[in-house]
């Protein structure tokens, strides 16, 4: 379902934009407003991260947002309520991103039920590789939720094929070896890697980690389907507030 939605969108646009925010950071109200700005700016897809105390795959900016959200009292249940509210209120697909322990403690089936009820489109769990899946993708799929998986530059072709098989919605291509938020060189290497990703799957490709400015987005055009802006959105939120986010995003996408 998510894939279909994206394909439809991709008829009109050759590159979609996905943004990211940490639920409860700095508070739920700001999250609501930020999502409003994102949607208004024309964002196509929004990743809502449920904060976790040990976000091992995240870089400093998102890491600190996780901590601050937890320190401000962001409980999982409240995050899910807000996610449901946002999904009901805005007409873009929302994804839940979090670490496996949050899902595991909640109960994988119970979480899937809850996300389905909330109208969420899919989930990204970066520390749950296919080897540890243990029924997880099926449980999601049964509820119409897309289990999003990741490719990385070190994934072999065989492995990409395997991941492509159990993933749905799109594939999240990590642009380089490294955590979120640091600089990536948008180079020929990256282009070659993305070509390899393209060969490995028929799912749309999202490219994340390090997208910061117009030029990065332009670079991806034709090579991927979705540009993911993660840490940079948060940085702008921190420095320029909610309205800054809207301006920043419009600057990124404007034709």
């Amino acid at each position, binding site marked *: 379902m998510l894939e279909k939605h994206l394909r439809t969108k991709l008829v009109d646009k050759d590159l979609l934009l996905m943004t990211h925010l940490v639920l409860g950071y700095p508070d739920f109200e700001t999250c609501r407003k930020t999502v409003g700005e994102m949607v208004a700016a024309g964002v196509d897809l929004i990743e809502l991260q449920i904060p*976790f*105390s*040990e*976000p*091992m*795959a995240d*870089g*400093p900016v998102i*890491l*600190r947002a996780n*901590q601050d959200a*937890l320190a401000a009292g962001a*409980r*999982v249940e409240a995050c899910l309520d807000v996610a449901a509210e946002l999904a009901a209120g805005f007409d873009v697909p929302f994804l839940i991103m979090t*670490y*496996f*322990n*949050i899902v*595991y*403690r*909640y109960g994988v089936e119970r979480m899937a039920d809850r996300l389905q009820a909330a109208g969420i489109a899919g989930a990204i769990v*970066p*520390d*749950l*590789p296919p*080897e*540890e899946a243990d029924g997880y993708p099926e449980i999601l799929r049964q509820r119409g939720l897309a289990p999003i*998986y*990741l*490719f*990385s*530059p*070190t*994934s*072999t072709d065989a*492995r990409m094929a395997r*991941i492509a098989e159990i993933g749905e919605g799109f594939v999240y291509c*990590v642009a380089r*070896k*490294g*955590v979120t938020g*640091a600089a990536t060189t948008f180079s020929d290497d990256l282009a070659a890697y993305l070509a390899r990703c393209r060969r490995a799957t028929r799912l749309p490709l999202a490219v994340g980690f390090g997208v910061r400015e117009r030029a990065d987005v332009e670079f991806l055009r034709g090579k991927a389907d979705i540009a993911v802006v993660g840490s940079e959105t948060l940085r702008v939120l921190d420095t320029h507030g909610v309205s800054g986010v809207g301006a920043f995003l419009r600057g990124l996408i404007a034709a």
Partner: protein
Amino acid sequence: MDSQGYFGRFGGRFIPEVLVATFEELDRAFDELKRDPAFWQEYVDLMSTYSCRPTPITYAENLTRHLGGARIYIKREDLNHTGAHKANNVMGQGLLVRRMGKSRVIAETGAGQHGVATATMAAKFGLECTIYMGEVDVERQRPNVFWMERLGATVVPVDTGTRILKDAINEAFRDWVANMDTTHYVFGTACGPHPFPALVSYFQSIIGVEAREQMLKSTGRLPDRVYACVGGGSNAMGIFQGFMQDDVELVGVEAGGHGVETGEHAVRLAASDASLGVAQGYKTFFLQDEDGQMRETHSVAAGLDYVGVSPILSSFKESGRVRFESATDAEVVEALALTVRKEGVIPALESAHAFAGAFREASQMSNDEIILINQSGRGDKDIFTIADAFDDPKWRDFIRRKAAQYDA
């Protein structure tokens, strides 16, 4: 262990996709090394020329008399180079790094012991070295930081999360994700994603292999009980492996902190405060809240102050092969004082947990029973913590005078 690195329900490998290839490389290197009949001897040779393995077992005659029960023996890991069992693991991984042809190592450290050990290994093997250490620990363990820097390591204070061991681990993984081509992550304990629990336990098994032979040689039989403190679980795994197949009771002693009932402790297996979870790349018992967020832990011993625990020990908890107990900070300081006074050996605060656990039981045992305590490290490095634990006024005056001298 199954092929996915599971010990019963525990273990596994929960890692970001970008690390998968690195772990597969590590799997292969570890497999090769285990299959290489020459490797173990290479490892033993290194440890017997660079550290002083075999470390002795010492008969604690005075403690035995004082407690009036079982005969007490101590396995002296404190006599290792750098002062703790941590040396076994890092030197083993050093050999592995050499085989893999990498030029840089990184490590997390809590108490600083593993950081010093890794920096030492890096100096010896000529490797670049970065150590991640929670800011709180950097502050508590400055002497260790000083030595790591002298050894040529870069110490990165981690100011995220609760700024302790687990945060240092997260940070080290972040580094690894970015630098896996050149870098090996020297994990410090029998935790983390597969194959680390098995890998670290493999190197630490040298403790138990030696201890079993030494006990047979000097007492003519095996001990009735073996005690080890449990932080991540590596020293416990190390000594326990020597007695796994024997009719020997194995006892792991966790950090009771201010008491299990206060919530300020690091007891994951000996009480029911912890629950099954997945974090830092593996599945085990964690001290976490209902949402699955990791809790703050407390122990007088920085090296036991960890939210998770070796998945292998979790499986032994479940199978009943190992019994788990805890000792409070107060009991530990008392056991430490008694051991120093009676035997002239200074256990690390971590190790003193094993002593405290053993002392509690030794007097109830009979004279012809034997217990073996693993003294995982020496306490003289912990002087700042131990002097505070003893609340020594002369020490405080000394520090004040020293500070005044620097201000002059």
